[in-house]
């Protein structure tokens, strides 16, 4: 019986092939745009996620954080060298720790080679950075502890800097100036591409001590501290210990919140996920409306189709079709129409997503998650049921005598 209902429905859809496809256009467009949008956003989210994954789940990032009410009063909290020194001395269970210092003004074009200037961000850090960010030089070497200790003026460049400054392909041994100080290029970092619009190759790394020197040893320079715990189980202990220590050191009264943030890379990942998920949901919601419009189109054509086939329905009834049979046949027809639209839209949307991702330089490849496929097909089928029920009921309730007399 079910097979017969399906067969009858497919036959009817096929009999009006062109009209069927035109009818499903709304669904096609709806599903295609949903899939295209979701695939691009998900692709982005995946690539961001995998890059953050490289930070490792046992990594912690400590940053200064100013609560909004204090920021209004003009206070800005900083994480300084003394905080770093304290953590180094007093916290156990840390395997790698590095400060990251952004040399102020470095993005203003303070880096030069001959007549070329670079807007690269200059980071002061130490040898542990390579472990923490899982990033190694493709040419030359990174900062050694010796460089840091002796405040050696050496620099490791990102590939964009090499291009911008028109340095030789192997720039090792060249001298560049950062804030009017000469730095010797000793290495080039491997390429990383863009992360949320930020070119990760437009960076320069210098020893932390040299970076501090560039600022004239201000005590209150804001730094970021990155560290890795030895054992993942100790993560919470280390974290609490650091929090207690910093609160005490920074004289935060009991009733005040932290003026710094300790984040694990998992948390960073989570917050980024949250952003992409919100974007997906909002965009998905907007295009879902077009599916609704598509459904109304289906209903419209189905109503026409029922009228057109009144006689056929009458014959079926006279020959013994029950109301259920007629109802299910038309419902199946609507669902099939919507699913055809869904499948075409799926293919089209994936193509569109891949095209968009491919055309934007540095954009990660589009990803279509399974849930999006299931959701859009499921949604199409539901649209078919919801908007098919009215025409199907109309067909099922036709009086056989009237229907047979219909010309």
């Amino acid at each position: 019986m079910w097979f017969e209902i399906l067969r009858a429905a497919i036959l009817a859809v096929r009999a009006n092939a062109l009209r069927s496809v035109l009818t499903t256009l709304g669904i096609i467009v709806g599903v295609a745009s949903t899939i295209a949008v979701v695939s691009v956003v998900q692709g982005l989210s995946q690539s961001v996620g995998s890059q953050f994954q490289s930070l490792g789940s046992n990594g912690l990032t400590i940053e200064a954080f100013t609560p909004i009410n204090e920021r209004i009063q003009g206070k800005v909290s900083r994480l300084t060298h003394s905080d770093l020194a304290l953590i180094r001395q007093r916290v156990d269970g840390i395997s790698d720790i590095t400060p990251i210092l952004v040399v102020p003004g470095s993005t203003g074009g303070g880096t030069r080679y001959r007549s070329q200037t670079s807007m690269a961000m200059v980071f002061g850090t130490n040898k542990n950075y390579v472990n923490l960010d899982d990033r190694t030089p493709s040419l030359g070497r990174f900062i050694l502890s010796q460089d840091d200790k002796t405040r050696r003026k050496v620099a490791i460049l990102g590939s964009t800097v090499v291009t911008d400054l028109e340095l030789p392909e192997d720039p090792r041994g060249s001298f560049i100036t950062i804030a009017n100080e000469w730095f010797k290029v000793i290495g080039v970092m491997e390429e990383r591409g863009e992360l949320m619009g930020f070119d990760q190759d437009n960076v320069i790394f210098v020893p932390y001590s040299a970076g501090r020197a560039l600022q004239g040893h201000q005590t209150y320079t804001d730094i970021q501290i990155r560290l890795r715990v030895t054992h993942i189980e100790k993560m919470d202990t280390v974290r609490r210990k650091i929090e207690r220590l910093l609160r005490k050191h920074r004289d935060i009264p009991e009733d005040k919140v932290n003026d710094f943030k300790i984040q694990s890379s998992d948390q960073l990942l989570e917050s980024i996920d949250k952003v992409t998920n919100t974007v997906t949901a909002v965009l998905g919601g907007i295009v879902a409306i077009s599916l609704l419009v598509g459904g109304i189109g289906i209903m419209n054509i189905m109503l026409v189709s029922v009228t057109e086939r009144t006689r056929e329905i009458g014959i079926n009834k006279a020959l013994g079709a029950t109301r259920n049979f007629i109802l299910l046949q038309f419902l199946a027809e609507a669902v099939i129409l919507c699913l055809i639209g869904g499948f075409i839209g799926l293919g089209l949307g994936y193509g569109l997503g891949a095209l968009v991702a491919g055309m934007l330089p540095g954009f990660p490849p589009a990803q279509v998650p399974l849930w999006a496929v299931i959701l859009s097909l499921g949604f199409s089928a539901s649209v078919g049921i919801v908007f098919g029920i009215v025409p199907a009921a109309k067909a099922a309730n036709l009086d056989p005598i009237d229907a047979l007399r219909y010309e």
Partner: protein
Amino acid sequence: MNASVLSLRNIIKSYALGDETLTVIHNLSLDVYRNDFVALTGPSGSGKSTLMNILGCLDRPTSGQYFLAGKDVSQLSQDELSTVRNQRIGFIFQSFNLLPRHTALDNVAHPLIFRGENLATRREVATQALIEVGLGDRLDHFPNQLSGGQKQRVAVARALVGKPDIILADEPTGNLDSKTTDTMMSLFETLHERGHTLVIVTHESDIAERCKRRITLRDGIVEFDTRESDHVV
């Protein structure tokens, strides 16, 4: 006398027309027996279409009882009537009413779908029925590839395929020329000889002449009910 296949008892059918009630069938009682070959005639407005719809279980009487093969079907629901139509009645219409997208074979096999028969059985039985009406070589033709007479023979095969208790034909020759009409009537006569029960609604007297029993309606009541045997020519 054969057993009665259908019997109507005090059938009344009336329609509400605004505030008025229009009664089309007035207290009609009638029996059709096994292997009857009935012509139902009467001028337009006599109520023969209405009676035909009631006989065909397409419509329910306002009051009265209708026994089909011993079962009272006068108060059944729409879906129950569908099942009765499917199992007990074979329809033949003036305008053939074949499904245009189905082949002759699929058209004939169609009613069996509602009985839950599988495809192989349906095709087999339908092929037999088409051979019976002389269309064994037209199985895969679509209705628009068939002549009027052939279409009506497909319809006859479709009516026969379910082994109904009664075959109801509503003006079966109304759309046919005189030669095809003759062939069609011969086919009906053959069916009668094979033991089928037929009721043919017609307004053509020469069609009615060829039937063994003639019932004439006028204003919703039976005016004449004559049999060949007691009819003096």
